[in-house]
Every structure is written in C-alpha cells, then in structure tokens.
C-alpha cells in the first residue's frame, strides 16, 4: 500500500474519524454509564474516569438485591424478559424456517399461475403497517385467550420473520444450479426428499446467516410485545420500564441497554455478509 501523505488525505481521514466517533461514542457512553454508581451519574460535569462497579448488573438480575441497594425496593428480574425474547424470537425463526423453506423453494423453482402475485404478496409484508395490525390483533388475542402466551407471540412474530425467510430462501435457491435436482427427480426422488437432502445442505451457510438476521429483526421488535404480552414481554418492553424511576436509575437502565445491544453486535460478527443483503432487502446484491 502506497502511503500517500498529503493534506487531502489527512482531511479525509479526519472526516472518517469524526463520523466513526459519532457512531461509536453513544454506545461507548452507555457502556460507561452502566459501570457508574447512581451518585456518579448525577455528577456535573459528567465523569469520564471513575472506579467502575458491577453493582448495577446485580440490581438488574438479582432479585434478592432489591431493598439492600441504594435504588430502594425496585424489583427487576431482567433474566425473564431476556428469556422471553430468546424464546419468542428463536421460536418464531424456527417456525418460519419449517414452513418458509419449502415455500421459498417452490417460489424459486416451480411455475404456476399467480406465482409472481404470491411472491409480491409475501414481499409486501415488509411494508405492512405493523401497528394497524396490532389493534385488531389485540382484540382477537383477548377473545381467543392467547394474549401473553408464547404461542400467541411466536405466531404473531411470523409477520416479521416468515416473509424474510421465504424471500431469502428464494434468493439463495435461485443461486443453486438446477441440474442436481433434475438428476434426483429423474431417479424418482420426492420433492421433500430433494428439499431436505439436496437443497438444504447446499443452503446451510446462507440460511444460518439469514436466520441470524431474522432473529435480530425479531429481537428489535417492541410494539407487538408492548400490546400483546405482559409477563411474556420481550427485552425491549422491559427496557422502557427502566426509564420510569428517573436519572439516578440510569445506570441500571444502561446495563439493560448494553445487554440488549450486545446480542445484535455479537450476531453481526457471525454473519455480517448476509446482514447487508438482508437489511437492505436485496437492494444490495
């Protein structure tokens, strides 16, 4: 690499650095905040160097700490919403994979009437106004008695996960040469056999990336959990509740924020390539 030291280069490097700091600083600041005591967070000017404490994380997770900490008797068991989020998002992805992979395969490979219309209909869910669905959904959930159940939540999360899984499967299958399947069909293999024994192993790397991305989108969701669940509410809903006690409680909320943000950041490391494709919904090839 030619090291080209001139003014323009320096200036561009500086601009990139400023942009990177603007992106990173807020996240870094929240991480610092999660390690402060509630007295430190009230200090002015804000402290950058201090003795870090893990007490806030204890308050967040350990119910027995309630009352003995300087936050009074506020009881949080943050493990519960984390588990809820994992179960709901993970369950939703799993269900979507089971019913979505065959659908994506058919959309990629077969030709039938209305195929493109069905494809467009599925894609259209990316544009669905979620809140307009939630209000009637609230009504139905109350009537059916599936409010605040994992079953209801996993089902309603399909509106986020299923279209993505079908669409990404379709894209990935179209990248696979068709000859392999044709040979298998000539040998008399059934469709399901072809999907599970031939296509699935070839798709695996792509599908793992797709599943991580879709899990992430489910992890992001707030509105569905806010209105359709209470005890089974996800992390995002639990976080909002941590805002209520006020500034001296910020460090504990910051711990919750750090946890809610670490999961996606870990996921990016696992599947960055697929994320760009999925986040931009194929606008980026």
């Amino acid at each position, binding site marked *: 690499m030619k090291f080209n030291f001139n003014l323009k280069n320096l200036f561009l*490097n500086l601009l990139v650095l400023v942009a990177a700091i603007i*992106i990173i600083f807020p996240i870094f600041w929240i991480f610092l*905040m999660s390690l402060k005591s509630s007295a430190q*967070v009230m200090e002015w000017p804000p402290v950058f160097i201090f003795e870090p404490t893990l007490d806030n994380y204890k308050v967040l997770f350990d119910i027995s700490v309630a009352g003995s900490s300087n936050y009074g008797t506020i009881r949080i068991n943050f493990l519960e919403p984390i588990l809820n989020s994992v179960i709901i998002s993970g369950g939703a992805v799993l269900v979507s994979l089971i019913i979505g992979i065959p659908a994506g*395969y*058919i959309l990629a490979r077969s030709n039938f009437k209305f195929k493109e219309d069905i494809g467009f209909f599925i894609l259209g869910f990316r544009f669905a106004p979620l809140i*307009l*669905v939630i209000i009637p959904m609230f009504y139905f959930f109350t009537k059916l008695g599936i409010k605040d159940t994992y079953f209801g939540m996993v089902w309603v999360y399909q509106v986020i996960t299923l279209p993505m899984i079908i669409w990404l499967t379709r894209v990935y299958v179209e990248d696979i040469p068709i000859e392999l399947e044709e040979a298998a069909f000539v040998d008399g293999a059934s469709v399901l056999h072809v999907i599970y024994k031939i296509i699935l192993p070839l798709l695996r790397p792509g599908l793992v990336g797709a599943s991580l991305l879709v899990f992430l989108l489910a992890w992001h969701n*707030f509105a569905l959990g806010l209105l359709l669940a209470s005890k089974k509410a996800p992390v995002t809903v639990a976080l909002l509740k941590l805002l209520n006690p006020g500034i001296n409680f910020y460090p504990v909320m910051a711990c919750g924020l750090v946890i809610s943000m670490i999961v996606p950041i870990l996921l990016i490391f696992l599947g960055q390539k697929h994320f*760009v494709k999925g986040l931009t919904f194929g606008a980026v090839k």
Partner: protein
Amino acid sequence: MIKQSEENSLKNFLILPSVLVLLCFLFVFFYGVYLSFTDLKLGKPTVNFAGLKNYIYLWKNPLFWKSTKLTVYFTLVAVIVQAFIGILLAKLFSTKVFFAKIFRPIILLPLVLPPMSVALMWTTMMNPERGVLNYFLSLIGIEPFMWISEYSTAMLSVIFIDVWTYTPFFTLIIYAGLLGVNQEMKEAAQEAGAGAWITFWKIELPFMMPYVLIAAVFRVIESFNQFDIFIGTTGGGPAKATTVYSIYAYIQSFQNLNFGRGTAILFVNWWLVLIGALITIKLYQMARKRVS
C-alpha cells in the same frame, strides 16, 4: 410418468402453510380497516357500525390535523437529511484512505441495535440537566439545550435520533451502488478535462440516484410508521409536540380505549404511506431512465 406430474402439481401445495399464515395477517389488517367504521370501545358490550363517524370526528379535530402535519414533517425531513448524509458518508467511506478501510464495518452498527434501545440511549444523553450532549455544548460555550423536553426542539431532537439510526441504511445501499459506477466513464470524463466536482455531478450522482431513491422508498414507509423511537423518547409530548399518527392512534386506542378512532387514524396513515411510497417509486423510475 403419471406419478411424476401428479407430484409436480402436488408439490406446489408446499407453499400453502406460509400463504395461509400470511393470509391470516391480511385478514386481521382488513378487520382493522372494518373496525375503523365501527364504534368499538374496549369494555363496551356492543359493537355498532358507525359509518364515517370516526373519520368525521378526526376531520373536525385540530389535533388530527396537527398530527398529520407532524407525521409528514417528520418523514420528509428525516428521509431527506438521511439521504444527504448517506450520500456523503458513502462517498467518504468509498475513498481509499486508511481510516475508511478500518472503520467501514462500523457503519452497520446503528442499524443492528434495537430502535427502542437507541431511543433510550439518546434519552439519557439528551437529559437537560445531566446529559452528556449538553456537556459537549457547554465546552464550546453553548447554553444548555432542552432537546426532547421542550416543545420547540422535541421534534428536531427525535429527527436527529432517527437520522443517527437510519443514515447507515442509505450509506449501505449507496455504497453498493458506487461500487458499480463505471470506472471507464469516470476516467473518460476526467481525461476530457472534467474536474472532480463535474464528474461527481454529471456521472456519479445520476448513477447513485436510483440507489438513493430505492433506499428512500423503504425509509418513507418505515418513517410513517415509526413508533418505537417516539415512545422511547418523548411519548408524543411535550404538549403533543411529537404526536405523530402512530402515537396518536396508540393513545386513542389504549388510553381512551377507542379502537374505532385508533384504527381510523392508522387507516389514514396507511393511505399516506401508499402515496408517499408511490411518489418515491415514481422518482426512482425517472432516475433509472436518466441513467440508461
């Protein structure tokens, strides 16, 4: 052979479970539209068809018009600012300078965080008394700013948060578009004596435009429906300064328990989304034509 073709038609049924699940949602959507023509109130035993009553109520309500303005204003300003900064960042990160290479993966970061976490993160930083943003302002001698806590600045502050979160979406898409800019055309233009600016305006920008606009389609739709960032920062306040449609509908439905009105607001919003998206798609098609 007969078995083969039978199976061929049968295999298309594998798409059915997915389609059925999604049709349920479509049904729920239309049921929501139907509810907007009823007087459904939670806790009220009967549901009656109310015709246009909810819509007439909204038409006559100044808050509805205020909310309309806020929703459109939020979407327009946020998307346009994001597009501009998105183009700049894409250009910046596509330069070959050292830091651009190192920091490229960081662009993805704001997009992968839960919007609710992002909203709460900024809420703590925008705190008027103890927030770190006011500390930075004080360093350069600017008076404390009220951010999301004051009527006149609340909406701009939320737009600021939205811009921080979603500008990378534009950057990612435009960056991919820039990779496809025809290098020969650029070189030909430069050889013909065109400066860097002319090359950018005449060749790169028209080439980028379709990518900018396809990103805008997604952002327009999602901005009209933005809910998390408002709830996590202002909750629609102060004094209704940020009561966009989604918040207005939420308040009508779950605080006043008036589901009919809530769904009516959202159905109006749905039409605005459609119009906004169609206009952006039209612009996209025009930009495509210009390139080819």
